[in-house]
């Protein structure tokens, strides 16, 4: 049996609140609308989308690029919506 260390960062990953449930496929289906609506209205939220993006590094890594591109197309600064999207989107 190999050993793994439970660092504070690892503990954070284990205890992410991923509710309400949304699948990766449903995230992909909705992510374009989610991004454009957030850029149009920084107060807009979809709890299921936000939860999935907190909990799924791969979808968040993809959404971050989509947000950059869509923001540029819309002529909008994406910065106001980045903090609540979690660490994956800030890089």
């Amino acid at each position, binding site marked *: *049996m*190999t*050993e*793994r*260390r*439970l*660092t*504070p960062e*690892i*503990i954070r*990953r*284990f*205890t*992410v*609140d*991923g*509710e309400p*449930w949304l*699948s*990766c*496929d449903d995230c*992909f289906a909705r*992510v*374009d*609308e989610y*991004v*454009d*609506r957030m850029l149009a209205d920084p107060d807009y939220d979809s709890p299921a989308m936000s939860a999935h993006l907190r*909990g*799924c*590094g*791969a979808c968040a*890594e*993809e959404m*971050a*690029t*989509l947000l*950059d*591109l*869509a923001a*540029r*197309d*819309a*002529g909008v600064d994406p910065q106001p919506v980045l903090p609540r999207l979690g660490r994956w989107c800030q*890089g």
Partner: protein
Amino acid sequence: MTILGPVSTGTSGTAAQAPTDWVRALSVPGPEKEAALFRLHELLVHAARRQVARMREQLRGTADADDIANQAADDAMVAILGKLHTFEGRSRFTTWAYKFAIMNAAVQVRRQAWRGCDVPLDDPDLIVERAPTPEAYAQGRDLATALATAIAATLTPHQRRIVVALLIDEVPVDVLAERLGTSRNAVYKTLHDARVALRADLRAAGYLPTPSESP
């Protein structure tokens, strides 16, 4: 009928014109369709390159970033043209289109990054990390110990292997799905269910706020 105009849909730093109605431009045979296909491909290559650039640290020397981006854009083009009738206008067309190129590029980068690497699917011994200060150590150790206990007691061996691979070994969800012969959805569902169970355990033990105490 003019369907090409200097509309600022799609930024890639190139000067090619974008249609005002992408779906129609891409559907009606003729020079407008050819122009729209060309412009769309440019945009998809740009989007795929941006994703590859975001993930460049994961790519090892032998992988060709441009090859990945071009292939991702080509595959996205096929997917988009096949799904054109499903575009409902709930976002800009370009935002909708980019996501196909972005996902293809990301999946390819992750696949390349893990090519030839073993995915350790074991059931490990979890060690509680020492924090830098005595106070942080005491606080963090309690939570870490509670989490280690919950992982051992509450999760099934299958859940443990999945969450350890994803969250500690940092195997991407799509790579893990491929190795296990299952879907990204199924792997993420296992992770989600495991987190729900762990959070319930930690909440019951007083390590996480109950929903009514949450801000």
